[in-house]
Structures are given as C-alpha cells and as structure tokens.
C-alpha cells in the first residue's frame, strides 16, 4: 500500500477558488480532449441565508485516493495505482462497464466517444518531468495545490496564519485567552 504521507495529492483551497473555470479549459488543452470527457469540473454550491448568502466553488479532479474505490471496483484491472499513488487507466483493458463510475463518490470517471473510461491523470507526464499538473500550474487564484499532504498543510498555514478574518471565531477566542 502506498504511503499516504508521501503521496502527491491535488488539494483545492476552497477559500481561494473563485469559479473562473480556467482549470477546465487548460485541462482540455493539456490532455487534448474534445467536448465530452471532463477530467475536472467546477461545481457551484450556494450556502447561507440573508446576509450570509454566498457562492462556493469546488473543482473536482481525480482525488487519486489512497485506497481507490474505482481500482477496487474495476473487474478487468484496467484501473491501477502507480507506485507514487497516481491512479491511472489502461484503456485497452477497459470494457466500459461503468463500475468505476458507480464506485467513485466524486463522479470522476469519464467516458469518451469510444466508450472506454478515461480520467484525470494528475498530468502524469508533467509530474514525471518535475512540473505541476496543468490546472495547478495555471490556477489564477492559486487555489489548486499539488504536493504532499504535509507540504500542503505548511502552505495553508503560511497563507492563513496572519489573517484574522478567515478564522473569525477562532481568533476571537485566542484574543479572549490572551486577555
């Protein structure tokens, strides 16, 4: 089993994603995809009432799960986890049974014109060259991070440690303690 501490993951900083959808077309271009399969897709969710009403955005690329349900569900072994944890598909083995889509809670598996499963590869070709996946490299809001969980946690702490507004209730509590 892959060590989840050292596996690279795609993390979405939802505090930052603002729904511009650039990740969707940069992904299409990078992976040379026609309209149809969507390796990533930004979903908008409305929350709150009255003065707290707001929009939220969540791009959903493949999560490359540690114990991936799609890999377990695949009856032909077309789906597999690479040594570094990236979940990939060998299309020639796929029979288009859709078990992976049934198993994936994120709706990630896509099906092109040939009916075979295809999906986000974390831009494995770029990863192998030491660069970031196209969506993470391009994100104008710098909301898509691709790194190990530990490094992502460090980046988030750097981003938000100085900002009282983002941790409103928490910082108020800290202040109370300080007083």
């Amino acid at each position: 089993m892959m060590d989840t501490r050292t596996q690279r993951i795609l993390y979405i900083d939802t505090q930052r994603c603002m729904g511009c959808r650039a990740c969707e077309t940069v992904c299409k271009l990078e992976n040379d995809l026609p309209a149809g399969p969507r390796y990533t897709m930004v979903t908008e969710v409305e929350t709150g009432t009255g003065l707290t009403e707001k929009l939220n955005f969540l791009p959903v690329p493949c999560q490359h799960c540690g114990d991936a349900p799609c890999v377990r569900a695949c009856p032909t072994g077309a789906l597999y986890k690479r040594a570094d944890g990236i979940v990939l598909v060998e299309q020639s083995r796929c029979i288009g049974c859709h078990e992976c889509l049934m198993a994936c809670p994120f709706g990630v598996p896509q099906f092109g014109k040939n009916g075979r499963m295809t999906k986000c590869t974390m831009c494995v070709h770029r990863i192998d060259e030491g660069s970031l996946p196209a969506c993470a490299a391009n994100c104008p809001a710098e909301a898509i991070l691709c790194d190990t969980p530990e490094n992502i946690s460090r980046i988030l702490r750097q981003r938000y440690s100085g900002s009282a507004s983002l941790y409103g209730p928490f910082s108020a509590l800290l202040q109370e303690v300080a007083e």
Partner: protein
Amino acid sequence: MKRVTFDPYRCDLCGVCSAACSLVKTGKFDASQSRIRIETAGSRVPLRAAVCRHCEEPACVTACMRGIIDQDPQTGLVTRRHDGCFRCAACAVSCPAGACVLDEALNAFTACDLCGGDPLCVKVCLTGALRFEDDAENSAHLRALYAEKMFEEREELPGELTDAQWEEICSILNAEGLSVAPDELRRGCR
C-alpha cells in the same frame, strides 16, 4: 447512452424498485426476479445497484456459448433472446455488475432491458436515488453531491416513505397498467 444510475446517499432501501421491476416483468412481487437489486454494506447501508450497465464491450456477449446475447451496434444496448438459454450461468459469472437474473418463468438468464428506454424502477423511485441519465449527467451529479457535502449544504436525506408517497407510487404503477393497492405494494417490497 443513458443508463440507470444510483446515488446511495438518497436511497432509503424501501425496495420499491425491485418490487415494481418484478411486477412488470413477471406479474408478481418477487425480489429474486427483479432485474435491479440494491446491494448493501451490512444490512442497512445502501452501497450499489446491481443492474445491467450495457457495457461498451459486454463480457456477457463474449461469454454466452449460444450467441443469444447481442449488442446493438448503433445504440449500444445489450439485448437477449431467451430461447436456447441452457442456464450455464456464464453470463452471470462474467458480469462485472452482477446484473444477470435467472428468470423462473422464462427458464433463462436475463437482465435489465431499460424497459425499452423508460425504466420503471426510475419512475417509481421517489427519493431520487435511481436516475436514468448519461455519463456526463451522472458525473456532474456526483460531483455536485460531493461539493454540497464539502460546504455542508447537502439536502436532507430521505426518511421512510409517507402514506401519500406510497399512493403516488401506486398511481404511477396504475398508469403503467399495473393495478396494485398501497398495502399490497408495501408487502411486496418487504
């Protein structure tokens, strides 16, 4: 193509889908004859729906010794002729979805035929757990569900069906020429 898809979060395991399916296909309530079965983890956690996915490259078609399972080259629909099936179960064993059913009346293995393009199980599923949609819709739907969970805006999960809902299902069945009383249906779902 459109397929029967399943959202486990919305399923309340009422059993209406299997009951309606067996009723329309065999004329009686018998979950073992239903072309759709909801599989659970343990006894009360809905997990997946075993129903024919009409695969791109169907294992059943390859497995069938008699050559009576066909795939329509245009629509991709997997169809069966039942005469000549000698119940070798090769289709059932090879099916990745576990969707093949041994029909007692036909004395042959069979599977979901999407009711000719308007599946009854989807019509009677009032919780919205079963849907009839294409890949893009299914994927978008699942992604939206995940996002809603992320922002804690997921709609309330369905509880038990109300009396009015049972009646509504009966009227849907009636419209299909399947005359059932609510009590009868409830019993059939158990």
